[in-house]
């Protein structure tokens, strides 16, 4: 009995610190949903049926659950991409563009070559990662060499990516209407096993790759020397430079790895969900949502996984909200935006929490 007590105490303190870490994202989510409920009330909908429909739209049927996992797959990759750069003190707004070129490159390799499965699929994935990495390299090198702010360059690179890949698809790869040919089975991530498991949803092997990518990100950043350097540069580039680290190389490296993750996210769409690349009429928004995922997930692997699930679920459940509770699908966008808003204003939540705590201690 006596031995158990200190262990229990340790567990308690651990849980407490975890709870404080979790407080901001959880409170943000709560506030987001709460404000969403009031908006529903004001616009004449019942928030309880609305949210019930949302919940049902994710968990009610194995098909939609499979679609939710499918939806969160590229979000995990784009979230990791944003978080990885962020850890090095870089704001990679260009995930969207890196994802688009990764999508195109992976499909291009998928369509053009005729190889056995064991070579073809890895090669296609690699092509996606390399293309994304290249797209991240340009703003990286500009930042390192010429101090051009990466936000500006990456935003511009998004447009370049969108229109350049549309150009290539339209002029060299167009098969029917808006898209390229379907990739052959040897380059495809789609899985009859997972489809069968989820009643014909488009869930594919990429989901497992996404989980693996979370582990890789954690390992790279926290378990390798290079990862330590990257984070150090993020905390304080001057101090890192003084400590003998090459800040410029680390900036470029971080952007390349970040772009590589984003490119893989695009490959998920190209090789998994769709099986082709299409002329995009506008941005996919997967890259921009990655910013939200990384922010809510506090740039940690597990956080990114969970918040990708939340956003994926919100997006898939939104259609059911509309179909069975007549709530406009835009409401979900508002809820997402509000969650981000609250996360971004986490300073306020932290301040309130501190005040509460000091009040209690004062008594």
């Amino acid at each position, binding site marked *: 009995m006596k031995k158990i007590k200190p262990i229990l105490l340790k567990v308690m303190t651990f849980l407490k610190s975890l709870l404080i870490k979790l407080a901001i994202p959880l409170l943000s989510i709560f*506030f987001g949903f709460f*404000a*969403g409920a*009031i*908006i*529903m009330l*004001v*616009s*004449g909908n019942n928030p309880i049926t609305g949210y019930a429909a949302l919940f049902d739209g994710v968990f009610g*049927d194995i*098909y*939609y659950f499979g*679609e939710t996992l499918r*939806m969160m797959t590229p979000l995990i990759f784009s979230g990791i991409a944003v978080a990885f750069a962020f850890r090095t003190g870089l704001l990679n707004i260009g995930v969207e563009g890196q994802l688009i070129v990764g999508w195109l490159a992976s499909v291009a390799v998928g369509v053009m070559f005729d190889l056995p499965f064991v070579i073809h699929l890895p090669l296609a994935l690699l092509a996606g990662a390399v293309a994304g990495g290249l797209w991240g390299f340009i703003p990286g090198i500009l930042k390192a060499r010429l101090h051009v702010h990466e936000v500006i360059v990456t935003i511009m690179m998004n447009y370049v990516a969108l*229109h350049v890949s*549309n150009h290539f698809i*339209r002029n060299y790869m167009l098969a*029917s*209407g*808006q*898209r390229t040919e379907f990739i052959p089975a040897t380059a495809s991530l789609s899985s009859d096993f997972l489809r069968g498991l989820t009643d*014909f*949803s*488009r869930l594919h092997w990429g989901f497992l790759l996404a989980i693996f990518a979370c582990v890789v990100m954690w390992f790279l950043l926290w378990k390798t020397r290079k990862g330590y350097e990257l984070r150090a540069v993020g905390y304080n580039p001057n101090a890192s430079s003084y400590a003998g680290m090459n800040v410029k190389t680390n900036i470029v490296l971080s952007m390349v790895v970040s772009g590589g993750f984003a490119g893989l996210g695009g490959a998920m*769409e190209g090789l998994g*969900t*769709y099986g*082709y690349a*299409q*002329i995009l*009429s*506008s941005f*996919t*928004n997967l890259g921009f949502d990655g910013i939200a995922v990384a922010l809510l997930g506090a740039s940690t692997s597990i956080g990114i996984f969970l918040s990708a699930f939340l956003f994926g679920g919100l*997006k*898939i459940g*939104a*259609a*059911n909200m*509309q*179909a069975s509770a007549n709530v*406009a*699908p*835009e*409401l979900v*966008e*508002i809820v997402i935006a*509000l969650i981000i*808003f609250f996360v971004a204003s986490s300073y*306020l939540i932290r301040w*309130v929490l501190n*005040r509460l705590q000091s009040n209690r201690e004062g008594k």
Partner: protein
Amino acid sequence: MKKILLVFLFVILAFGTLLAACGQADEEEGQAGTPADTQDTTDEETGDDTDGEADAGDFNVKMVTDVGGVDDKSFNESAWEGLQQFGQDHGVEVDYIQSSDASDYAPNLNRLARDNTSLSFAIGFLMADDIYSVADQHQDKQFAIVDVVIEDEDGNTVPNIANITFAEHQGSFLVGVIAGLQTETNHVGFIGGVEGFLIKKFENGFKAGVKAVNPDAQISVQYAQDFNDASRGQSIANTLYSNGADVIYHAAGGTGNGLFTEAINRARNGENVWVIGVDKDQAEEGAWDGGNVTLSSMIKRVDQAVYQVSEMTMNGNFPGGEILEFGLDDEGVGIAPTTDNVTQESLDAVEEWKQKILNGEITVPQTDEEYEEYLASL
């Protein structure tokens, strides 16, 4: 402390409410926008209302919009109007699901099939691949798609998909005739959405119409590569008007709304510029306090097509596997009923060319190659 929280919450709520209110107003506007003729039919309908419902049984028709949504003031909106009309006339349940991006198409179509929808419409050719796989997984369900013909690997149509297409090139030819006759600068423009076979039909039909009546006219063509970007539409319109075009025809969905904005701005400054609308009568979009910049519109009766296919299906004649083309002859395409800005001369010319198309004197080109041949034959 509490005060700050309160103020904070209040700001968020006020902001959210404002957004919600905007959304609602939009919806109401959309519903108010349905043509007045829905009003007429409700009166007739009340008499045999119960009758209709009994006939219909569990029959229901639903549609999936593409990313434009049901208030895109063109294509999706027109389909939804037709569906609502059908619902009113026959006491049938109708509904729609809006897609917020391309990856939503498959789950949305799947949702309709799973909910035992009697007939599910996919509005727009962007859903071609998705409807093919969904229809394959639900072979006992009935589907219809607008604007494209779905074929399997062997080039056969699919038995549980009805393919609805339009002869847009013919309708575009007629508005091209109007543009060719009424341009004063002898320069007209065309704004396309995303380049592809479908929008090329609009472009080539239009160009052929202009050249038919005005062989010397200059035609500028530009694609926005987006169906949903009004600001891009406006900047393209700005370029085209600045380069001397005075009539611009658009086949660009929501992107075209920017064309109207630009034209109205210029009209306010006293310039003489015109817009030709697309898909539905866009006179409403061109109205401003000093007049109307909409010259005419190429209407594509998506509402009629949706209505007719729904009716056929309800009566047990689902046109699965068939390719239905709605053209000039069954008024599937044509010029808008609002002709306030069109001269009598143009109207006569439109009638004349319409007859020529109908009795096969001319074949309106659809592709770039056909257009080249057509030009050579002039």
